[in-house]
């Protein structure tokens, strides 16, 4: 555990945040993941102080103050609020932004194609709402999984019909996008009559998003995750699979993800979160 924590502390920027790589300026995603990984330590509290100032009027958090663009990683900040038990006005505004956000389905290849041939190029249920990476774009698996975790953890503080509806539909969205092999990729399971393969990191994230859901048969997906883990997944995949399998109580032979000086900061943070004594436990739960 010390190796991951030490690496994070070494990389911390003077503003108390983290960049994606050593020496780079602070961004929301690596900063909030580092804060989650170091939860309970003063460095996490200091990052919390930094992040609090990055909330926009809309309720979203910005990717970083220089850019000012609303960030999909707002969901991770809401998770951090819940882990800290801070169900305050900022959390409420952030949650509201997540509940308002919906993806917008992309148009098909050409208007002529759509008019003359009612073929569905990408086989999926477009009536299901998930979440996009950025406003005005389509729903995708990874942002949806992150938001589902944020919404579930928010349930004790803000149980509402809308919250429950969006959780229920978000879960249906993820199950609809599940690949034939039982895992997930970015969100296209079948395109132009061909099944697409899953990616281990997306499978892990979808399982993280679905933890706590009821009445879902995830056996094939958990088996997929375990099989992926058996292939010695590197970097991000390994770090996320460990968290996902632990959250679902799956027994597996543990291996610590290797990190080097070039490893991206979010991977270091996720490796720390996924340690046996890591903060992954605080990501679980969220039932009314």
């Amino acid at each position, binding site marked *: 555990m010390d190796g991951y924590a030490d690496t994070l502390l070494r990389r911390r920027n003077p503003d108390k945040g983290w960049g994606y790589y050593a020496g780079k300026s602070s961004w929301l995603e690596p900063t909030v993941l580092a804060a989650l990984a170091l939860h309970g330590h003063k460095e996490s509290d200091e990052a919390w102080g930094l992040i609090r100032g990055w909330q926009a009027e809309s309720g979203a958090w910005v990717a970083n103050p220089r850019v000012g*663009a609303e960030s999909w990683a707002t969901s991770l900040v809401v998770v951090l609020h819940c882990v800290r038990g801070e169900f305050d006005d900022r959390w409420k505004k952030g949650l509201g932004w997540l509940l308002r956000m919906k993806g917008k389905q992309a148009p098909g290849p050409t208007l002529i194609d759509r008019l003359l041939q009612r073929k569905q190029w990408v086989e999926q249920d477009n009536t299901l709402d998930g979440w*996009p990476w*950025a406003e*005005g*774009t389509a729903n995708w698996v990874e*942002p949806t999984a992150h938001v589902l975790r944020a919404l579930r953890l928010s349930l004790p503080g803000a149980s509402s019909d809308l919250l429950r509806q969006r959780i229920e539909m978000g879960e249906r969205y993820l199950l609809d996008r599940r690949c034939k092999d039982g895992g997930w990729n970015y969100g296209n399971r079948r395109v132009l009559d061909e099944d697409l393969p899953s990616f281990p990191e997306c499978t892990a994230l979808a399982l993280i998003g679905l933890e706590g859901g009821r009445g879902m048969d995830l056996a094939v997906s958990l088996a997929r995750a375990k099989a992926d883990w058996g292939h010695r997944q590197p970097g991000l995949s390994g770090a996320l699979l460990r968290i996902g399998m632990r959250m679902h109580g799956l027994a597996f032979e543990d291996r610590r993800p290797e990190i080097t000086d*070039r*490893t*991206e900061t979010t991977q270091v943070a996720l490796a720390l979160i996924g340690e046996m004594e890591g903060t992954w436990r605080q990501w679980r739960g969220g039932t009314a």
Partner: protein
Amino acid sequence: MKRRDLLAAGGAAVLGACARKTAVRPTWDRSAVSVLKAANYDVDLVDILKRGVAACGLDVRGKRVLLKPNLVEFSRETVINTNPKFIAAVAEVMASQGAAAVTIGEGPGHRRDTLGLAEEAGYFDAIPDLERRFTDLNRDDVAALDQFGTIGKMWFPQTVLAADVIISLPKMKTHHWAGVTLSMKNYFGLVPGELYGWPKNVLHQHGIGNSIVALAKKFGPKSFAIVDGIVGMEGNGPIQGTPKAAGVVVMGRDLVAVDATCCRVMGIAADRMQHLRMAEDLGWWEADRIEQRGEKLETVKTRFGLMPMWKGLGEG
């Protein structure tokens, strides 16, 4: 004539009409494109590339050169990415020509673990000093550019904006949405995932053709293209197609002319390729405006298999 052919022909007619209406064309008279044979990745690629670069008059002395390969996903079953030996050879050529710095950058559109993907694809093994040279464009610091197509303000990696020359190094592939993916489409990887996601769906929403052209408009003026057509991909590209040995390298400063030449190598009608026609103010797609150097087209032409939806693009 089948419905698909009819649609393609109809689309070409519409494009032709649009093109005649706007009719803004390049300010220069002709574009040089080098076409060279390379049987495989173990031949003397440095020598071949040097000949091509010299034929096109590329001068990188004292300039910061960014190599932009096409690194998307990895599969042992097919050839999705620009071959690492090819990239290493280009890097060596640029350094030998006096470039002040040669760096490599990519922002993959599907996989979030950029360095893990580069490792899987053999980049760290084959490209000397990659660790120091490589920038993950999905997570670089960024700066804004105004007037990107109809989107308006859009953020791009500092590494891309600071480069004096960008060398687009695509794989020669068919593409199930765009028809082909070559030097212009390769620039989707310049858009930072940290802001726009995986995939960079904002480009799809803006229209794939519109986005290809908008990127070429922004970055084409400081670009040079070198296409890895030694082993390309046909059929259901850019991910699930099958390897196609074409044994060719195509390069030049005019991205439109390079991509149009690649189409002709692949047996695809360049004049029916939507995004090439949409970009005709940026470069020459017409064969009689392209000054082809090196091999004659007939000696390298290798018909690439097309998906049924793109059959209408095949040359007669």
